């Protein structure tokens, strides 16, 4: 999996600002929420790229901007070497066939008035010219791929549990044979034992169908489990990007270290042995990010320079990227 050809998605200097307006009649643009601020990374074919961060760090916005559900403020998104930012609406709709999304909340993301069959065949209606019988056959095939009884076609979402609904969401995403699936916290609203079921299913499907995942989550241990490489975001910026084992064994950014040390360990011996880094304070508002390094308000290593200049996002070798004045 190396070389130019194997890159599926290339995100270059992506920015997404949401304007904040004030005033009733004449809305003045006063400032921006910098949800995603100059983010670059690549996703290789067939890999799972984990994207972690806390609330408001912009991880969901990155996922949605790749799909062009949000129009980027600036920057480029290359999908299979086609620049998505230059595409018109119709061309973009055709491209979306190759990129699908699985949403966080399996209750809100399925229309309660549609049967499971019509939910799953909706993407087929838009993107394919299959006839009714073919669609029905495809829906049944998809249901069995995600481990649901193919007789469930005429049931409604309320008849299913959370885990089963998430399976329906996965079936819908797979309907058009996408290359890239963006999983936006697909397991965070599920129970622990069901989470494992869904993660196992996602891994199995990846092996079988050669899918590429962008796996967005805040649960570091689950992301580490499923990913090949990991991106850590904080307040709209990438703090660190590396292979999953590298980021776990030699985390360079103090934020990554704190995140790792906050992961609960289900083992009383290991848990009491490890050193916990408890970060002080809260995440600053993205409306009003601190000057210099974004993390300087909570960083245990912060010095003078961190308050003055923003650290560059640099490669420290073996594709390990980090943005910190004190890294290395």
């Amino acid at each position: 999996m190396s070389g130019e050809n194997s890159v599926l998605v290339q995100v270059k200097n992506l920015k997404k600002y949401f304007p904040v307006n004030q005033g009733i009649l004449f809305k003045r643009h006063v400032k921006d929420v910098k949800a995603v601020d100059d983010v670059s990374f690549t996703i290789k074919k067939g890999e799972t790229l984990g994207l972690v961060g806390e609330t408001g760090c912009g991880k969901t916005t990155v996922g949605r901007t790749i799909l062009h559900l949000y129009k980027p403020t600036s920057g480029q998104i290359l999908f299979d070497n086609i620049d998505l930012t230059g595409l018109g609406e119709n061309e973009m709709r055709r491209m979306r066939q190759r990129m699908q999304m699985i949403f966080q909340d399996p209750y809100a993301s399925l229309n309660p008035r549609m049967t499971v069959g019509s939910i799953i065949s909706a993407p087929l209606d838009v993107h394919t010219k299959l006839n009714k019988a073919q669609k029905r056959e495809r829906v049944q095939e998809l249901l069995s791929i995600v481990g649901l009884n193919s007789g469930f076609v005429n049931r409604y979402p309320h008849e299913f549990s959370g885990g089963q609904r998430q399976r329906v969401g996965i079936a819908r995403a797979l309907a058009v044979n996408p290359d890239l699936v963006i999983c936006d916290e697909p397991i965070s609203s599920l129970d622990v034992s069901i989470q494992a079921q869904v993660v196992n299913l996602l891994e199995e499907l990846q092996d079988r169908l050669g899918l590429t995942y962008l796996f967005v989550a805040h649960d570091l241990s689950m992301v580490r489990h499923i990913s090949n490489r990991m991106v850590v975001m904080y307040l709209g910026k990438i703090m660190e990007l590396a292979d999953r084992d590298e980021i776990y064994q030699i985390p360079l950014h103090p934020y990554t270290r704190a995140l790792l040390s906050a992961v609960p360990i289900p083992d009383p011996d290991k848990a009491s042995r490890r050193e916990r880094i408890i970060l002080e304070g809260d995440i600053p508002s993205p409306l009003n990010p601190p000057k210099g390094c974004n993390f300087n308000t909570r960083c245990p290593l912060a010095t003078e320079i961190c308050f003055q200049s923003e650290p560059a996002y640099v490669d420290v070798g073996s594709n390990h990227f980090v943005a910190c004045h004190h890294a290395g």
Partner: protein
Amino acid sequence: MDEHIQVRDMKPLLKINDLKTQFHTEDGIVNAVNGITYDMNPGEVLGVVGESGCGKSVHALSIMRLIQIPPGEIANGEIWFNGQDLLKLSDNDIRKIRGRDIAMVFQDPMSSLNPVYTVGFQIVEALKLHKNMRTKEAREKAADLLALVGIPEARKRLDNYPHQFSGGMRQRAMIAMALSCDPKLLIADEPTTALDVTIQAQIIDLVIKLQEELGMAVMWITHDLGIVAEMVHKINVMYAGFIVERGNVRDIYKGTLHPYTKGLLGSLPSIDEAPGTKLISIPGLPPDLVCLPKGCPFYARCVYREDRCKYERPSLEKADSNGHLVACWRWKENLTEGVK
């Protein structure tokens, strides 16, 4: 974490005896809690672990007598706290205990604080009611409490409204409120589920520190076996309204006996696992609490089930002399197949 403390003879602070809580709904009677029995000592930290719908919150609400009747009903059992049966107390008497001797911290700090009153007002209210303090004195105490839970500029913050606090600070304020009357038992019902990991670490750290300082008993309810591993003395694992396994924290993690607990532990990825490790998921779904299975509640999802499990329900029995209890017909066989 000194486990010997638990073994010593001590008069239990809380003694629950065959508690059954049900809800009468249109679909039938939902059996939320199905006869649970256990003791809690003063100063003990107990973890109650289970998935949604396993009755962990309902059992805590039953202790607080916060179950709405109807549709709810505490159908059976006794809850002895400090020498009195909470279930037999009048509404007036339970109100004196609730919030004073037993305090509770809820999952969602935004919806459990009243948005139209200042945080200070809400803490002062409890102090005036339970401790008969005057407003001025109560405000002093409230400021001390906010400082105790690590809110900077506590005195100023008293006059803030909940929306001016972040999620982590709201949960700190909730904890301050719960501690205001020096409770003997603090029930924390998934207090960190709505919070980010780094904030969760702050809150866990705070509760451990406060528990050590103030010496109260803490019941920590969670669905995450990872969180409680480093903070509790004992664990109750609940499933479908039953306690299926109970023991000291090391016994639960290192000498796991019940297949459900094994499954829960297997479902969690470990942070230092080898690449390509598969998670052990528990197949299927929890049973419908309206029509409970006749035999073992875990029968339908258990990899070790046999015919007996279908028809006879195992009761919680002693597995060793350290108070490790398990409800499984086959626990002695040391089953490990399909488990990490």
